[in-house]
């Protein structure tokens, strides 16, 4: 029986939010598998710290014109994009009604901002890249980094809605783009030990959370990155939301 081929030699991979945390782990893992990596991130300082062989573009993923210019630049430099990892995002906690604050209702501007960062940016980037994939007839793959919160997580109205939207994108685009040989998959992490998770949750919240995870531990970034590599390499996964959550159900 032949071994699975996880080599990504000659593949061009674009990772949004790839300068730190999950995105960096994914970028490094795909690079180790042989892919040429382009990282788009809005953090100039962290971009500078990346490996020299990574191509880097400093853009905010919600900036439509900036993203279009960056993707056009990537296309001119590399000729195509085979792999898009929509990873950029921001965890945000706020309940619909907060009974401990004078302004009880969820801040609408914050809601819109979180939808913009976590969902609308995925729409913009995917549309731009999928268009190039169709024109160039690239049989590529789009991997959306979703979240266990897509199932509805108390205290994360905007973030949960955004990630549920990302899951809907995944299933819709898998159907629309599949005939062109373009696959769309989501990887849906549970609680992963990254700076953004530890910043978003207090120590006591993390402790009580870990007790609810059947494996009794947080995941790590490589657990997610290896799953991404697997779904990128597997040519028959399409439209699936792959959970990486230690067995946790919200």
């Amino acid at each position, binding site marked *: 029986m032949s071994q699975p081929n996880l080599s990504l030699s000659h593949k061009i991979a674009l990772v949004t939010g790839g300068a730190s945390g999950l995105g960096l782990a994914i970028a490094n893992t795909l690079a180790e598998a042989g892919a040429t990596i382009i990282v788009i991130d809005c953090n100039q300082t962290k971009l500078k710290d990346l490996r020299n062989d990574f191509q880097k573009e400093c853009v905010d993923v919600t900036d439509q014109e900036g993203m279009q210019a960056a993707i056009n630049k990537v296309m001119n430099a590399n000729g195509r994009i085979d792999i898009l990892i929509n990873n950029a995002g921001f965890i945000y906690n706020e309940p619909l009604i907060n009974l401990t604050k004078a302004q009880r209702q969820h801040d609408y501007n914050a809601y819109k901002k979180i939808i913009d960062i976590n969902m609308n940016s995925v729409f913009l980037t995917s549309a731009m890249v999928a268009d190039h994939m169709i*024109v160039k007839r690239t049989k590529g793959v789009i991997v959306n980094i979703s979240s266990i919160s897509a199932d509805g997580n108390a205290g994360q109205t905007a973030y949960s809605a955004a990630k549920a939207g990302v899951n809907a994108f995944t299933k819709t685009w898998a159907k*629309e783009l599949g*005939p062109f040989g373009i696959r769309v998959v989501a990887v849906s992490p549970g609680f992963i030990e990254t700076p953004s998770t530890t910043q978003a949750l207090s120590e006591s919240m993390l402790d009580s959370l870990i007790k609810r995870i059947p494996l009794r531990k947080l995941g790590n970034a490589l657990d997610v990155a290896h799953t991404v590599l697997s779904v990128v390499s597997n040519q028959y996964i399409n439209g699936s939301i792959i959970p990486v959550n230690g067995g946790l159900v919200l």
Partner: protein
Amino acid sequence: MRERLFQLLSKVFDMRLGDINESLVKEDVYKWDSLVQMELVTEIEKGFEIQLSIDDIMSMDSVQKIIEVLDKYGVKANVPA
């Protein structure tokens, strides 16, 4: 070639073969929307072993136009059988 094309269009548009003709335009075909356009492209490319340019894809809004586009690629869909 024309019969092959018409059979393909009949399948993609979910219409009877006898109802497919050169004068058919997009507005005449109930099912011919943006999603069916994508299906049309993949079926034509697979059926005639060609790869259409994005401009040609965008221009295909009638059976006559499809025939003209195929002609550019050396597929003589205006020739019966």
